[in-house]
């Protein structure tokens, strides 16, 4: 990755404060970070450090109390909530530690959800979802109930769901946190393969040092601030 690569998300002096007055709690203070196309970033920190809050702000799920955030060169503060929702739907994919799968629906229905939200036709989204399930080696489980799968299979379904709308960036919050190390490794490999083969940018929140080390960059968050200077690795 070289300096000229396009900046997808730029955060400048972002702060996030919860509550008011004496009860105010500052989760993030003056954080600046750019997310460039094709790179992999690990946001590392202890629980309560503010790393999840940073990811939520970068992913447009939350708005900063202070600071400027721009996505594709456009200011997030200028966009309506409807525009933000559309942007999330079309350019972001999400992978969560706790999966958030609808256990009573089929694997296929779970994977199709972002496309259904996007308003894609039934036949088209089914076809697209099956393609993606193929990529994560779960095509044979398409009709199974999501609740009946193993942890590793569930996380692969979640990755398929994140991939289905062909995103530019995948935000992964502790993607291997609920998995044993062998399955965790498989899921990691899958994510990094998406980065290397398809150029999908990864923003991974983790406290797993091994996972963080595989990323181009590590951003260490401590008490709501970036703890060490950002180390850039060229590939």
């Amino acid at each position, binding site marked *: 990755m070289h300096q000229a690569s396009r900046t997808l998300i730029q955060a400048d002096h972002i702060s996030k404060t919860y509550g008011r007055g004496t009860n105010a709690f500052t989760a993030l203070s003056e954080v600046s970070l750019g997310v460039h196309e094709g790179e992999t970033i690990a946001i590392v920190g202890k629980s309560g450090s503010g790393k999840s809050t940073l990811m939520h702000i970068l992913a447009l*799920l939350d708005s900063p109390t202070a600071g400027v955030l721009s996505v594709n060169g456009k200011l997030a503060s200028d966009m309506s*909530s409807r525009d933000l*929702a559309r942007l*999330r*739907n079309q350019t972001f994919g999400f992978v*969560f530690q*706790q999966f958030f799968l609808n256990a*009573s629906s089929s694997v296929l229905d779970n994977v199709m*959800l972002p496309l259904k939200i*996007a308003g894609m036709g039934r036949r088209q989204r089914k076809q697209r979802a099956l393609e993606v399930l193929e990529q994560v080696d779960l095509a044979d489980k398409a009709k199974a109930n999501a609740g009946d799968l193993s942890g590793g299979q569930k996380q692969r379904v979640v990755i398929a769901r994140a991939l289905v709308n062909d995103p530019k960036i995948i935000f992964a919050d502790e993607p291997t946190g609920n998995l044993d190390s062998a399955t965790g490794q498989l899921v990691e490999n899958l994510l990094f393969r998406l980065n290397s083969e398809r150029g999908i940018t990864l923003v991974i929140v983790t406290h797993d040092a091994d996972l963080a080390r595989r990323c181009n960059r590590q951003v260490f968050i401590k008490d709501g601030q970036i703890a060490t200077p950002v180390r850039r690795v060229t590939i």
Partner: protein
Amino acid sequence: MKLFDIISTASTNTFRSKLRTILTILAIFIGAFTLTLTTGLGKGISHYIDDQLGSLGAEDVLLIMPTTDNGFSSPNDPPKTYDATKKTQNIESEGNRTIALMTEADLEKFRKIDGIESVTAYRQAAMDYVSGPNNQKLVGNLNLLLDGEKHATEVGQMPTNDSDVPQMMIPSNYAKALGFTDAGASVNQQITIGLTNGRGDAVTLAIANVGVSQKSILTSGFIYVNQAAMNKLVTLQNQGAPDSVSKYFQVATARLKSELPASKLTQVKADLKKLGFDGMTVQDQIGVIKTVINGIIAVLNGFAIIALLAAGFGIINTLLMSVQERTKEIGLMKAMGMNSGKIFLLFSFEAVILGFWGSFLGVMFAVATGFGINQILMNGLLKDLSGLQPLSFTLQSVAPIVAIVMGLAFAAGTLPAIRASRQDPINSLRYE
């Protein structure tokens, strides 16, 4: 998300928690079921009245009576003063009620009103008995058949005022009692009517029976005669009575000009009112009965609506629980780009779907029950009343019930749906 996808997703979500959904639907079902039965009852009765009396109807006949100014008054009104210009009569049989009378001079005034074609005094003879081949003397209710009045006949025809020959029609249960083998055998036979004249002598008149009327709760025991027969009976009855008796009468019938518009009819009634008389069409008279029935039905419907309102709170409760349970799912959908408006719709539709199933099943079950009740009653209790269907349902009467309940469900769903749409995706997804 497309509208179709929202509806189908809402439909799937509705049945995710089956027991809770079924109980909520059951509450709506009870309300819709009751409302359908009570409106069906109202419809059935008013259909029956229309069938039996509506045909009486000739819109162009007006009954004219003096505006009653009698001893009865509201407790707050002062007693009224006696008006010597108004002839009154004391009727003992009606609890010593004083009723005003009219004379031929009044009829002349009526004839001058624009819109009135002709006016005749409605003279009524008081019948003592009716008797047939077996000479049994039976009491009955003698009535003049008004122009345009119609009754369903079992056999034969109705008497007609176009004929100068006296004619009568007996109710079906009189045929055998009078000594005929069956209703058919009584047609075109002479039947005797007995009365008392002004001198106190018993007199009789034989009249040809032209038909037998069907049984009905509203006209049971009514013997109808045409104008020619009534004229003869009145003449007979007034023999030996003072002149005053034949000079005064209580009611006149006016025939209105044909195709009279409703506004004109109102004008005719207003003109009569100025002269001190009330004009009433048969429709007006039925209207009074219907108002009473509609009042009763409205109260019954009120109870059903209370049940539905209670069911509405059931919907609110059910959906609030759903929103609570699906917090994470709502957060996920929002994170994936579903906007608040669509989340609102998703939960609103869930409420509407609950409303639809509850009311649809309730209405269907009520209609089936109604048909069952109709069958049982028509073959049992109401066997003799041909044409009475106690419960009547039409698509136009039940479809609005489903629509109203769905509207109510939508209203009930707004609170939970707003709550869902306002949820913050971060709070919904946060885990620690």
